[in-house]
């Protein structure tokens, strides 16, 4: 890359941001020149154009970034097609294996399962290393995850194995390994969710309760989700697009668990009257979502602020329903909800203005 200094991008997302800035700069220069606000000499214009061209070419070569808006649109289309294709191929493999399963001997069944998981992993490695096939990597990663799921579930069915919480942990480790190796955000979300669920299941398992009943004690998911949020606070040197996803998923799990407990007090480990438990978690939901909004806005964590706003509104609407739905005329109820939304908009606007000023 020409003039590669301290500001040179180190990751793909940094490179994409640089490419976007260059495109915006080119558009603005063009507009300013047309409006007569700027007059570069033809030599300066050509020099700047050549410099931008070299930088964009270098970014495209080194980081495979999109250097035009059309390329971006095509990339988005490829991502959607890759996701749908991966899901469809995974379902196809799974259903085909089910269809022929009963015709195979036990040895053949084990061989199919092992070939499926190891073969799909090798295929993923092959695809990710070949420059021309690299666009298939997200799809191959999903197929590898499907192959692993088939392997795990197939062995459990063939040998009548008892389901254990460590199975969830295996799913988490495998999905996260693929996500980190191949920058796969969907598998990152899947892996983080499985990790949080396995924490919840292990906590319940330690108390002697059947681990699949973990969903009946949502507090375990608060612990699991919080651990995912903590993982999202760890700086990711080369995968800097991952922490927002980890913070978002972790916070979502924490707030869903608190929301569940605010309506279903019987599901708490706290040995108190369900009404008292529900009231406590309703207050906690307001505090946690408001804190998420504040932290998200001050630190620039948009995903945290977004999840916070969503759950703050859900908590507010639920309280409104509890207080007024049964006795208030419905037009008045919705009027109050609408006015509250406007008040919140006004508050956010003021907050935004203060953040801009500071």
């Amino acid at each position, binding site marked *: 890359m020409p003039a590669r200094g301290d500001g040179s991008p180190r990751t793909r997302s940094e490179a994409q941001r640089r490419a976007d800035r260059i495109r915006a700069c080119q558009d603005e220069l063009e507009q300013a020149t047309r409006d007569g606000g700027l007059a570069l000499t033809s030599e300066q214009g050509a020099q700047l154009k050549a410099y931008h061209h070299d930088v964009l070419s270098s970014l495209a070569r080194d980081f495979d970034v999109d250097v035009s808006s059309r390329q971006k649109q095509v990339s988005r289309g490829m991502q959607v097609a890759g996701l749908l294709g991966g899901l469809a191929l995974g379902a196809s493999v799974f*259903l085909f294996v*089910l*269809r*022929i*399963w*009963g*015709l195979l001997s036990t040895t053949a069944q*084990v061989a199919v*399962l*092992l070939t499926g*998981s*190891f073969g799909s*992993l090798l295929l*993923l*490695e092959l695809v990710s290393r070949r420059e021309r096939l690299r666009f298939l990597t997200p799809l191959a990663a999903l197929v*590898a995850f499907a192959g*692993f799921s088939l*392997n*795990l579930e197939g*062995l*459990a*069915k063939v*040998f*009548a*194995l*008892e*389901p254990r919480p460590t199975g969830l942990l*295996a799913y988490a*480790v*495998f999905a*996260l*390994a*693929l*996500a*980190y*190796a*191949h920058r796969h955000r969907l598998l990152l979300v899947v892996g983080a969710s499985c990790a949080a669920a396995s924490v919840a299941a292990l906590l*319940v398992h330690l108390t*002697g*309760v*059947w*681990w*699949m*009943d973990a969903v*009946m*004690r949502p507090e375990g998911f608060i612990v699991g989700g919080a651990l995912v949020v903590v993982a999202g606070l760890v700086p990711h040197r080369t995968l800097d697009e991952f922490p927002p996803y980890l913070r978002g998923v972790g916070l979502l799990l924490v707030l869903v668990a608190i929301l569940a407990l605010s309506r279903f007090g*019987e599901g708490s480990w706290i040995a108190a009257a*369900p009404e008292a438990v529900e009231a406590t978690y309703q207050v906690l939901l307001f505090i946690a979502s408001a804190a998420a909004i504040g932290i998200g806005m001050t630190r620039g964590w948009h995903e945290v602020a977004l999840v916070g706003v969503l759950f703050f509104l859900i908590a507010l609407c639920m309280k409104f329903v509890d207080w007024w739905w049964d006795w208030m005329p419905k037009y008045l109820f919705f009027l109050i909800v609408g006015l509250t939304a406007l008040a919140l908009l006004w508050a956010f606007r003021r907050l935004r203005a203060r953040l801009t000023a500071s």
Partner: protein
Amino acid sequence: MHRASLVAFAVVTALNAAVLLGVGRDRFGAAGPGVWLDERELQLEPARENSAAIVRWRVQQTPWPASPFATTSRRWLDEAALTSLGFDCSVRPGDPQAPEFYGRQLNRRVFVVFDLASDDWDQRVAAWQPAARERFDRSEAVLDASARATLRETIDEASARGSRLVPVDAGLDLDALRGEYPDRQRHLILPAVVGVVYDSGVHSGGPLVAVRIHQVLPS
């Protein structure tokens, strides 16, 4: 290769190795005497897309004779036994707090001892049927027509269709249970998910806390 890819390969290898070694040890170890079961105890699960045969355990939910009335479950473990399994039975069944207290308790994984009454099954059913029919005749007030039809069928065809696996005991220590029930052809000890249920006793003569088998696990 990326280090995370190596982790993925390691997870697949370790998992398959652990499962296959465990299965090998289990299958090639000393085999005990066989137990003869049929479709009364093992239900074939119909599947459209799956060509493999899947069978599920069918067990008597209550110790024989099963109650033909609307009670949730008959008691085959008392409060002391339930406490030893980890359930909290500190609230008396007649207490007003009891329904909520027992309703909040989660299921636990335990070992259940099933009595496989294969030799004298027909005699046991024949001895039970007259009393069951008598109770069926009195059930009009508590059961609707559909439930009564099902119950009638259950009583009439108990010998041919009822599972002979009758739960008689449960515990957390497999070896201790096997020591107590050494006859492997008569007593099957299977891991199961069980829960407590509170029975208000409207139709069974008084409130009680009973155990219910939610799932017999593969083993």
